[in-house]
């Protein structure tokens, strides 16, 4: 087994793993009951899946072309940074625009807090 | 591939034309957008596809695809973007000011 084949195997595994994680996270977006839960699937799994693929690509170019693509690394960092912020902002916005939680939800401290505030104000 | 893309462009032209002939302003603008997408695909397709590597000399490939259509499309993309943006805002202002996005109601002759 030569080096190229080695690399291809590693890259292949990384890419396929990433792909599968992405696929599952997409399924999560379909299956989970409300936007808040879906955000979990989207922020975490997608991130990890894409990270795997990008890492695969980085290794591929590093070993076959000898290019250490800063752009790819930057991409990885960027995905790391943006995914949580995006998830946070989406569901915060959803809650602020009064998107209801799924029926199976058991607790909403935030809503309770906001209502108590309102009661204080109205008094 | 060329034929496939040309036909897709053709379908986009058809749908674009159909939307453009609509009286709803938004659909007209959408139709125009489709038209320019189709134009760009066509411009690529009829000049041959995948006939070499990306036109970057760093790629060290034996042959490169024709860079001219790409350059033309780039210019065209920017120009159609500028026009679409202007058209959209114009449409928006018209919509707000005249209270309609129906081109039939934007006829001039009758209410003059």
């Amino acid at each position, binding site marked *: 087994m030569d080096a190229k084949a080695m690399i291809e195997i590693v890259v292949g595994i990384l890419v396929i793993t990433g792909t599968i994680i992405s696929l599952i996270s997409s399924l999560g977006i379909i299956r989970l009951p409300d936007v808040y839960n879906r955000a979990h699937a989207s922020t975490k799994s997608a991130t990890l899946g894409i990270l795997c693929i990008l890492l695969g690509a980085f290794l591929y170019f590093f070993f076959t072309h000898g290019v250490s693509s800063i752009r790819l690394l930057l991409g990885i960092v960027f995905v790391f940074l943006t995914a949580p912020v995006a998830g946070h902002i989406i569901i915060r916005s959803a809650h602020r625009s009064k998107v209801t939680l799924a029926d199976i939800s058991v607790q909403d401290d935030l809503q309770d807090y906001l209502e108590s505030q309102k009661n204080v104000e109205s008094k | 591939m060329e034929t496939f893309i040309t036909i897709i462009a053709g379908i986009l032209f058809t749908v674009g034309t159909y939307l*453009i002939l609509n009286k709803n*302003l938004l659909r*007209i*603008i959408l139709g*125009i957008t489709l*038209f*320019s997408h189709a*134009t760009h695909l*066509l*411009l690529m397709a*009829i*000049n041959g596809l995948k006939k070499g590597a990306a036109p970057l000399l760093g790629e060290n490939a034996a042959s490169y695809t024709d860079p*001219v*259509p790409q350059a*033309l499309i780039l*210019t*065209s993309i920017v*120009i*159609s973007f*500028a*026009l*679409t943006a*202007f*058209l959209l805002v*114009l*449409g928006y*202002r*018209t919509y707000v*000011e*005249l209270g309609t996005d129906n*081109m039939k109601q*934007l006829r*001039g002759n009758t209410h003059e």
Partner: protein
Amino acid sequence: MSNVLILPIIIPLLTGMLMIFFRRHVRMQQWLIVISLLLTIGVSTFIIHRIFRQGIIVLDVGGWHAPYGISLVGDMLSALLVLIASIICLMCSLFAFGSTSNDHKVHFVYSYILLLLCGVNGSFLTGDIFNLFVFFEVMLISSYVLLALGGKKIQLRESIKYVIINVISSTLFVIAIAYLYSITGTLNMAHLSERVATIGQDGLLTTVSLLFLSVFALKSGLFLFFWLPGSYSAAPPAIAALFAALLTKVGIYAIIRTFTLIFYHQPEITHTIILCMAAITMILGALGAVSYWEIRKILAYNVIVAVGFILFGVGMRTFESLTGALFYLIHDMLAKALIFILGGAIISIFGSDKLRNFSGLLLFRPSLGWLYFIAALALAGVPPLSGFVGKVIILKGGITEGHLIMSVIGIVTSLLVLYSVIKIFIHSFWGETLLSEGDQKATGTSALLPGSILVTFIIAMGLGAEWVLTYVEQAAEVMTNPSIYIDAVFKQID
């Protein structure tokens, strides 16, 4: 190499950009625009002079020789049109000084006028088909903004139609270029001409040429003029004058250029179609001109009639008819600018464009009246004004070529043109005087200076037709003999 050719494009462009920085200094902007346009006029005159002496000037922009770079080609046709366009631009700007609101002025109206000129001049000068498209867009986007500027209801309504129709035709333009590039593998017009000539313009190329024709027909208001009356009547007076004098003419120029330089091998198809369209255009334009009672509409339809008449000359493609077409084109640019400026002044005085509400303006605005009267006669081709000579040459060509019916249409429509513009004269200048002495004394006065200058041009062009013809004939020479153009473009290689 002759960088002088770039100046009519970048002088207006740079000045227009510079004005963005002097947004609130209206006076400064006015000085800038006048100086810049005078400069442009001077440069254009110099260019004409040089072409007259030394033949076609070519500038390979970027130093990349044809067909690999973009070449600017100044032949007499282009140079003459550039000069006239710049003059008209100056006139319309002078008119705009007094006729445009301050709001417009601080919202870059002058910048856009200059950008429009940049687009127009560039379209005339470029020797590259894709570059022509780009210049068209510069011109069109400026026209969109100028039309919509002000945001009145009617402006919004008409400009949205205008923009939609033009954007679609621009897309068709790109498609046509795509086809052409695919077949010929080049974009330079001289090179295109050469290559099309080698294969003798087969059926597919003719088809593509007809797609170009459709696009240019729309831009020039040849048969596909439905966008024109509405938009011209919605624009503010100075802008309408600019549009009337310049916009359609660029389309006409494009038809002339492509169908004399590149697609001239199957005239029995292409040029016959042009002639048929020209005939229908003249008729429909005349119908519109006589039927309306609003100044703007009447004048807008007059633009259409002239387009048909010029294309009548172009469609015959003889030396004589092309000479006539170009002469008439130049005349029409000046005359249309003039009559739209004066019409705009009338409208601003009465505050309406409904002819039936007008009366008796001659008493207080005699100069305006007489300028208008001369303009009206010039428009109809009454001798010895400029329209006459062009009309005669085109008709002569028409009859020589056996296009008797076309010639009769030409004459009848010019009569209807006369009827329509004289109708305006009679209804606005004659009759009981409605305005009182002090009433709106100032309005319409900004039309007088540009009006008088243009009238002088029109008279001079008629009386000095011979002198103008020496230049025009040099242009027609190139139009009938593409090899002159091609040789000029490629001589740089040797």
